[in-house]
């Protein structure tokens, strides 16, 4: 899952980025509105965290411009402006959520997760495929009721596949969702991570849930053949 942070305060931007990375998100962080808009238009993000008081281009202008250009990324406005009129204006311009500074980081993460679920049309925080369950809030993975320990990156790949269960996800999409800088990723790193994931998920003779669609990508599904691409 890839998140864009647009925040002019260096310290806050870096803290949020570090926190979201630790939560398993791939993060891009920019300090001004103009660069943020370029990122939104050129990269696919699941969620964008947008400060309103941005230099060069105001946050609301970024939002308005992005929506007018067809950018569908879920946007969370994160600002010190607490007036109702500001919230209403932000939401009407196409923001999906609004959080006022100062805030609890856990709440920010919970809101990002909720936006992810809404984005992928999921009502529950638990993603299920066959006997596999993934709690996107606690990051806990179980198969057949047995907990499975995953690394941050493995979890991120699995969650990305689980959000689009039954649909083929390309390697590049997985790289974008998992790595902060996909250009620096080794070509087989996703394949290696998938292999480890399969090993951890298929213990005790359980059936394989992650299938390879050669030349295209991977799909999480209970059947051997992918349902849809």
């Amino acid at each position, binding site marked *: 899952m890839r998140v864009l942070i647009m925040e002019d305060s260096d*310290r806050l931007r*870096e*803290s949020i980025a*570090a*926190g979201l990375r630790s939560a398993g998100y791939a993060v891009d962080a920019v*300090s*001004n509105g103009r660069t943020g808009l370029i990122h939104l238009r050129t990269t696919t993000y699941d969620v964008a965290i947008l400060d309103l008081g941005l230099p060069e281009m105001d946050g609301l202008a970024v939002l308005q411009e992005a929506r007018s250009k067809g950018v569908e990324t879920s946007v969370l406005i994160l600002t010190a402006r607490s007036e109702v009129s500001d919230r209403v204006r932000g939401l009407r311009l196409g923001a999906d959520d609004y959080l006022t*500074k100062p805030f609890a*980081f856990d709440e920010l993460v919970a809101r990002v997760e909720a936006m992810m679920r809404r984005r992928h049309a999921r009502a529950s925080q638990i993603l299920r495929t066959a006997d596999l369950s993934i709690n996107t809030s606690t990051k806990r993975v179980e198969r057949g009721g047995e907990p499975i320990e995953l690394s941050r990156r493995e979890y991120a790949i699995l969650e990305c596949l689980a959000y689009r269960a039954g649909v083929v996800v390309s390697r590049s999409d997985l790289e974008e969702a998992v790595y902060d800088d996909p250009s620096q990723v080794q070509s087989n790193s996703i394949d290696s991570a998938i292999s480890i994931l399969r090993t951890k998920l298929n213990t005790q003779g359980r059936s394989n849930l992650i299938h390879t669609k050669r030349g295209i990508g991977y799909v999480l599904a209970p059947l051997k053949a992918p349902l849809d691409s």
Partner: protein
Amino acid sequence: MFLRRSRPRSIRDRLIRSLTLLAAAACSLGAIGVAFSVYNYVNAGLLGQVIVDSALLGLMVEHDGKAYHFRYQPAAFETNFGIGSTDAYFQVWGPDGVVLAKSPSLGSRNLPLPPAPTFDPDFAPTAEELEIQEATLSAGESVLQGWIRWDPMRMPNEPPPTPELDRRVTVTVARDVSILWRSTLIAGAVAFAAVGLVLLGLRFVIVLAVDRGLQPLTNLSQEVARLDEKDFGGRFAVDIMPTETAPFAFAINSVLAKAEAALDRERRFSMSAAHELRTPIAEIRTAADVARRINSPEASALALASIVTSATLMEAVLSTLFRLAKRSGDIERDVIGPVQLSSLIDHALARHQARIAQQQITITRQGTSELIIMTEQAALSTIVTNLIDNAVEYTPSGGAIHVEFSQQAAAVMLAISNTPVSLSAQDVDRMGEPFWRKHQARGGGNHSGLGLALVKALIQSLEGTIEFRLKPPFTLHVIATLPHLTGGRVPPVSEGA
């Protein structure tokens, strides 16, 4: 010991009371006038009757050379002076004081013999010739008495008058004056009764008139009472108010406008201050939350460093806010002393030497190093430092800064010009406003938007002026004029304060 103070009556009550008293006094005077008029009218009637009576009576006295004869006119006399009459009398005396005749209405009573009159009329007396006095009958009744001395007409067979014979008779008539007082009293009583009734009606009219007259004032006071102490947005419609209340409404409108502006300033200041503090608080909280979440020594160290920086920024904002508040309230004053302005400018520029070199900013200056200003040293240091800081911060690479200072009459002028990236006329109008920044963002720096506000407050508290001018192409001129101050402790010349 408590002094009892009665609650002041309302203007309405005062007006109603005063107008009622005035109306009562006017009506009473009217009633007295009516009674007086009735008195005069009746008195004049009595007097006229006495004059007519005495003239007629005199004409009816005849003398035949031996005795007096009276030609009574029954219709006139018996009606007026007959036995049945109770208020009209006559009596006639001969020259020797012997009563020759008197009206039956006198009965056994007598009119007093009046003294010899001034005139001896030849014919019917006029009002001036008739002697008039108030007299008392022997039985005590008050009468208006008139008298004449009259030479009676001769009888047809009367011999020629004997020269030595004085035939003149004293004729007196009188009218009972009780009718005068009775009429006056009745008229007075009726008039006062009428006054009472009129006053009742007048009171109603007065209340209506006062209420109607005071309506604009009542409306104004009700509107004033409805004013919300938290909302000063309402205004009185001065245009449609009467001339008398319009000045009040205008003054209240003026006060409301000032209060609204002050409240708005305070609200904006508080909101801006809260807004400005939210970000460093968010930085601190997020750094702590994330460090706890990651739970590694490296993350904790980074978080602590971030927290210290944010706390320092908050401290700076709060410190500036306090200083701004103190200077705006004229609470804080610094030591007054001579300051060498060029040293202060050198010191401020030296702090940015690296940036100036790196950005290839051209610095030019004009002003004598001998210029000394008597002012608050610390305040002037803050002013110069902030202005130079701003100029260097917002001058782009390859730009220029020009500093000029000179003595002007009793003041010193300091002008700092630089080429900012972009500023509009609206931006220049807002410069010096607390928390205002060209972009409402920090841009990675630690600018709170309070620097120029503090400079403005300091200059104003030093009785100086500051002006921001924008000249094409994008050159900002900040011109500060500072008068020499006197008083206070004067330390040695400060170099760079």
